């Protein structure tokens, strides 16, 4: 966890430094004592200060503590009885990125991209038996056509 905390500290230090310098380019107007850049600079300076404290504590081997509440269940490092599937999770994330790329950068269209995405993801997440492939295709086609119909014909929404 120390490495994770160090990474967190360094990332926030980098982000706050970027904001500090970028916000410094903004000049206040005569009627606005603070201006558009001052508050982001205050926040980024405070964040940078805390990041330095965090990094120093990690390097000195002191306890940082962890959040005791969570809004996303399942990422905790506790031991579990079932097998975790990090590669599957990464694959799903990569497929989501590919799906968005196809939708936003090609002319493949929502319907076919969605059918392929839902069917492929469903099959990968299932037990991958032959009949799961059939179910995956049926679910993919049903979801693709249903969502396409609902959003383009009923809600009249422009889809990606």
């Amino acid at each position, binding site marked *: *966890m120390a490495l994770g905390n160090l990474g*967190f500290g360094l990332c*926030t230090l980098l*982000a*706050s430094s970027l904001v500090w310098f*970028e*916000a410094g380019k903004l000049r206040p*107007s005569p009627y*606005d*004592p603070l*201006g*558009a*850049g001052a*508050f*982001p600079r205050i*926040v980024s300076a*405070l*964040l940078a200060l*805390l990041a330095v*404290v*965090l990094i120093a504590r990690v390097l000195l081997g002191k306890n940082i*503590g*962890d*959040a*005791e*509440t*969570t*809004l*996303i*269940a*399942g*990422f*905790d490092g506790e031991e579990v*009885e*079932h*097998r*975790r*599937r*990090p590669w*599957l*999770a990464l694959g*799903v994330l990569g497929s*989501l*990125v590919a799906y*968005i790329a196809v*939708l936003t950068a090609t002319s493949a269209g929502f319907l076919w991209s969605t059918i392929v*995405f*839902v069917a492929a*993801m*469903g*099959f990968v997440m*299932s037990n991958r038996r032959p009949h*799961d492939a059939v179910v995956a295709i049926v*679910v993919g086609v049903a979801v693709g056509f249903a*969502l396409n119909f609902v959003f383009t014909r009923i*809600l009249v*929404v*422009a*889809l*990606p």
Partner: protein
Amino acid sequence: MLDAFIYLLTPQPFLIMICGVLLGIMVGVLPGITAGMLMALVLPFTYYMTSVNAVTLLISIFVGGVSGGLITATLMRIPGEPNAIMTCLDGHALAKAGHPGRALGLGNAGSIVGGVMSWFALVLLAPPLAKMAIAFGPWENFAIVVVALMLIVSLSGGSMLKGMMAALLGAMLSFPGVDENSGTLRLNFGFHQLDAGLDIMPVMIGLFAVSQVIADTLNIEQQDTDRVRANMRGILTSFRDYGRHGWNMLRSSLIGIAMGVLPGVGATIASIVSYTTAKNLSATPEEFGKGSEEAIVAAETANNATTGGTLIPLLTLGIPGGLTDAVLLGALTIHNLQPGPLLYIKSPQVVNTIIASHLFAHIVMFIFMTIGVMLFARLMLLSRAWIFPTILVFCVIGAYVLNNRGFDAWVMVAFGLVGMGLEFVRAPLAPFLIGFLLGPLAEKELRSGLMSSGGDYAEILTRPIALGLLVVALLLLLWPVLRGKRRGIPAALKIDADVIRLPPGGG
């Protein structure tokens, strides 16, 4: 208020409310899918509704979701919603002892009592608080935001340092785009896509839906090995039951309401505190964990009682206490409504609809949870392999549809990664979200205050309420030092880790 009740009984809003409650219960039943996630997903589509229908839908999902977790917790010992975590212990034990209907009935009875009690609290406490808040100037509003952030940081527990960093990081990410005070374009780093800033919806969908689906995929092999078949025997509780558990219900409701009002605490901690309190005051504490009826009632009453409590700071001060409030805030914002005391004056029909739909949704939930429990229980058998890809498609549509920008879909993915990253290093997400939402408000109020004082910061020290609030914020900051410990969460909110160690996957 009567108009709002009558309006909700007309066909369209009534249908919306029924759909919302049904959807809420369904996602509550499905482990890994939360009501907050569903609310974030439907948020973009509420743009096409009237503001009152939009809030009706969201409140109904909220109420249904908080209640639906009871079914999975009782029958599978997996919390369908995180707030059902304590129900897993005794609800499941009672169900396994041959009384699943009784366990579900008691939980349902607790849910309706908690919900109705919190509705009374909302009706009685919110208007005077709003009346008081209307007299506040920018310095007081700025101080309220600071207190809210400090409260959420200190109650997130574990590490104040990480909590504060998360809150500031959230605030910092809310700054890119056009500064609404001066019209100046700022912090776009040369990317014109950032000119309009980061929209709240892709941010929330990424943080809570995308990251949750990825977390659930990580744990997709988790099996339910402890399933109990549902039956209806004992699902209807008698007046004697209400009498026997009356004091427990009242106490748990008050705990739930109080926990709901505090930003960042929420239903999960409320049910843990209520369970612990009930155990400490019980004549038969040894029964807890073995199918105690008192325990089920305490946990389920408290988690539903937070629903009204959490709406109080949102409606009166414009301060969201957690994810569901943040989504409601987003819904009001996309309808050009600003939550806070002025909402009572400018849009009383919206406020009244929120309050009325909170009560109606509980009644509808109680009916559905009583008659439809067998049907809802079947949902637990649905394979997540077919649900998760569909949710991801909804995420993409939801992020894209409001602004018709492909960029928003990428923002969603980016914030999904941010959510996972923060969760991985065990930095609390609630302060991050509230920082993102309240950062711009804090800046606006501070700059208004400075403009009125001619740039003099010292004026805040001359305003008694603002000064008092800042002192409270300072005390919250120093709380771990004053207690001589570095733990942020109050001892009263703690419970032995082995008591709540349950199979993960409850979304």
